[in-house]
């Protein structure tokens, strides 16, 4: 180490950076999909993918900071109680500043381009006749109705593979309609409609939680939804009580 320091004092820092970066990249690739709820829609796939990309992009930067900090603590700290002698006088270094700006700008631009692209995909409505579901938030219950069918339910049933358009409103104060497994979230506002689109692509059950603080029992404003096959969906619709 000491000899290598003589050769190149920053070799240690570089190695630390390399190790941390590799570790970071590995974690970035494997962690998101395992830490987040099971993906059940195209939006959620996109979300997880974006998280992986951003984490990979951020790993070398964070690693750099930590590598520097570790190196500084190991090699550049002043030993002893006496007042340290002055360090080297470096007031400006145009090259370093410009490079730093350039790199951070490039990273930001990359994130932006990816983000805007992902946003376009995220908001895009792929289908001509989406299944419309009217979502009503009320302290502290969600209710779902299927226009044209006179069916109103407290659990959400969706056919797999068909785009859904949620039209969300509230009966009292603002709630946050969030399907934890589908990466879609929008507030339910009194007197206003907000809409989100998603296409469920996995069969199964998912949780719906309120993400906008809505008072006393906010924590209990939860319900479940089910993604079922198309004809299971129609059978379910028919089985429901028809409301005037």
């Amino acid at each position, binding site marked *: 180490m000491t000899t290598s320091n003589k050769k190149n004092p920053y070799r240690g820092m570089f190695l630390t950076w390399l190790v941390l970066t590799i570790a970071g990249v590995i974690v970035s690739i494997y962690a998101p999909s395992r830490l987040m709820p099971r993906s059940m829609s195209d939006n959620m796939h996109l979300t997880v993918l974006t998280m992986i990309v951003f984490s990979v992009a951020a790993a070398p930067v964070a690693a750099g900071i930590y590598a520097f900090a570790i190196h500084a603590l190991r090699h550049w700290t002043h030993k002893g109680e006496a007042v340290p002698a002055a360090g080297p006088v470096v007031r400006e270094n145009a090259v370093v500043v410009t490079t730093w700006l350039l790199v951070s700008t490039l990273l930001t631009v990359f994130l932006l381009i990816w983000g805007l692209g992902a946003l376009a995909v995220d908001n895009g409505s792929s289908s001509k006749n989406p299944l419309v579901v*009217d979502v009503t938030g009320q302290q502290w219950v969600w209710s779902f109705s299927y*226009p044209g069918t006179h069916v109103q339910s407290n659990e959400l049933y969706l056919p797999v593979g068909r785009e859904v358009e949620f039209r969300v409103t509230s009966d*009292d104060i603002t709630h946050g309609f969030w399907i934890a497994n589908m990466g879609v979230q929008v507030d339910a506002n009194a007197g*206003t409609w907000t809409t989100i689109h998603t296409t469920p692509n996995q069969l199964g059950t998912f949780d719906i939680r309120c993400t906008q603080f809505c008072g006393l029992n906010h924590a209990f404003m939860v319900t479940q939804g089910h993604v079922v096959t198309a004809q299971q969906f129609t059978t379910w619709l028919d089985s429901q009580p028809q409301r*005037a």
Partner: protein
Amino acid sequence: MSIDTHSAHDAHGASEGGHHEAPEVVDGRQRMGIWLFIGGDIITMSALLFTYLYLRGVNTGGHWRSMVGYIGHSYSYYQNATNLPAPSLVHVSTLSAGLNWSVSAIVVVSAAIIWAAERGLRASKNAKSYSTLAAVATIVTVLAIIFSIVQLRHIPQIYVAVNDSQTMSYTAYDSAMMVIIGSGILHLFILAFLGLGLTIRSARGVINGDKWYQARLVRMFWVWVAISAVIGSLVTTTIH
């Protein structure tokens, strides 16, 4: 930090503990303070107008100015709604921004008076006449306050049926107007206080032909209040 103490004594007043600074030095500092306060006040004004324009833009349920046909609760927006309570009659807001103009006009007049008074003071060095004019400006301001309160009382109260129970409510338009007028009243009270201060101080000769700096400071703020009043009237009359 390298410090040269030998040349320190030509920093004037330094050895006297800094309290004998030249009046124009103090004045310059205070003018900057006033400018900064006005800056903060400009933000407040823009926030008020933002409120007004934003509510106008969103116009939830078309109830910006009118709640005619308003039905008990938002469930009524719901296409397959059932068993809604009967629509309750509520009338359109008849409030007009016209009174804003009358108030603004009065404030502008008071600002003009205080400005003229200051010019007179600096030209003719006559503190007595300044005192009189400041008193007049103060009285005019109080008039503006009274007008604003009258205006507030003109805002119609609207009754809405929510779940069969009558509750009073103002439309968004009325609300935005109320907050603009309210902030106006707040400013007018400050002006009245300052005007009274100027009157008394000049009467006592604390403000005089040579010490007129505070007159200018107050005038700066006064003029800004007048301008903001006019801006408020402009916006509320052109967009509604």
